[in-house]
């Protein structure tokens, strides 16, 4: 009986001390972590909408979309964070759109776990630059093995077709959601 009490007492004391230390550390760390995450989102929002000076999250949206304003407080475009499946896992990206949603300003990949050296080329400039000024009506399309002819087409990366197609698919489903919001007059 004595040993049982000893066991319970020891584990309880260790648990209480550990819990106390952790709550102290968490109190110190959580505001810093939050600030880091906020800074990261903010950076990405302005990266895809370079003219932007301030932003505001769109209320009533079931995904992350931000209104971006230029220095005169006029609406200059939208930044939407959207995610979907890539080749191996989730790809999360930020898409910059003009205010009429018909042209992409720029895109930025926030998180990905694509194949190093092949799929990860979607995060590099030669691929991303294709999206600058890309028309989005009726949707974004991809071509394989030849140069794009239409203003809404991009060329996939050799050896990373699935990753490239995934990016296009994510953009299209994000656009669809944004257009739905626009129709409902919530943007």
């Amino acid at each position, binding site marked *: 009986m004595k040993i049982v009490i000893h066991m319970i007492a*020891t584990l309880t004391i260790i*648990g209480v001390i550990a819990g106390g230390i*952790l709550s102290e550390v968490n109190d110190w760390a959580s505001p810093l972590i939050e600030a880091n995450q906020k800074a990261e989102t903010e950076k990405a929002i302005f990266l895809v909408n370079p003219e932007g000076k301030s932003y505001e999250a769109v209320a009533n949206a079931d995904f992350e979309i931000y209104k971006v304003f230029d220095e005169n407080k006029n609406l200059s475009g939208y930044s939407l964070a959207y995610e979907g499946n890539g080749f191996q896992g989730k790809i999360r990206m930020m898409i910059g759109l003009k205010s009429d949603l018909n042209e992409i300003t720029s895109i930025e990949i926030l998180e990905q776990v694509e194949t190093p050296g092949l799929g990860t080329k979607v995060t590099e400039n030669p691929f991303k630059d294709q999206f600058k000024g890309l028309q989005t009506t009726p949707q974004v399309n991809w071509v394989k093995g030849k140069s794009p002819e239409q203003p809404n087409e991009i060329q996939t990366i050799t050896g990373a077709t699935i990753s490239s197609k995934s990016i296009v698919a994510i953009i299209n489903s994000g656009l669809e959601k944004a257009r739905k919001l626009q129709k409902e007059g919530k943007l």
Partner: protein
Amino acid sequence: MSKQKSMWYEFYKGIWEINPTFKQILGTCPTLAVTVSVMNGIAMALATTFVLVFSSLFISMVRKLIPNQVRIAAYIVIIAAFVTVADLVMKAKFPELSKALGPFVPLIVVNCIILGRAEAFASKNSPLRSFLDALGNGAGFLLALVVMGGIREIIGSRTFLGYQVMPNGFEPWLIMILPAGAFLTFGLLMGFSNAYLERKKRIEQQQKILQYRKSENELKEAEA
């Protein structure tokens, strides 16, 4: 057993003699997963060493208070507390690194190096010895991760710590930064280190045989 061994030995043994990665073959999961670059390896090893040192020290201090039946549970709670501290500090101060290491920081809780050292060493030795032992094992782990990360980063992406070291004409071997490259590097390194030790042992044996034969001959001559 610990009486005759010097303090220096407690530290030193972890680097080579019982190197956690190549000799004890513990903690191979993070070793294989994070050594895509040297920086990731260093960060992982430092986080592990932090947890290892403090949990070993703490466990060694309270080793006589913990009843034998619940010792593993108590060790895990202590280790988990330190891991969570390390994880939160990394997320708050080094968000980039924390992102690169991903789920492997929280997984330090179940890293066998830490529980292994707690069970095999810290629960039987004084705090000072446990501290040195943990520091040595951490250094050994760091060494292993830096060597593996270095080889994989140089061949796989032409860089070392982010600086380009291989000429542009060198085509990076993609396989080295894929999981297969981790297994190749790990296997080859372990093979080389074992081959070196085998050779050393054989040479020592042969020298002993030679010495023995010599003394045998001398005896025979003396008899004659």
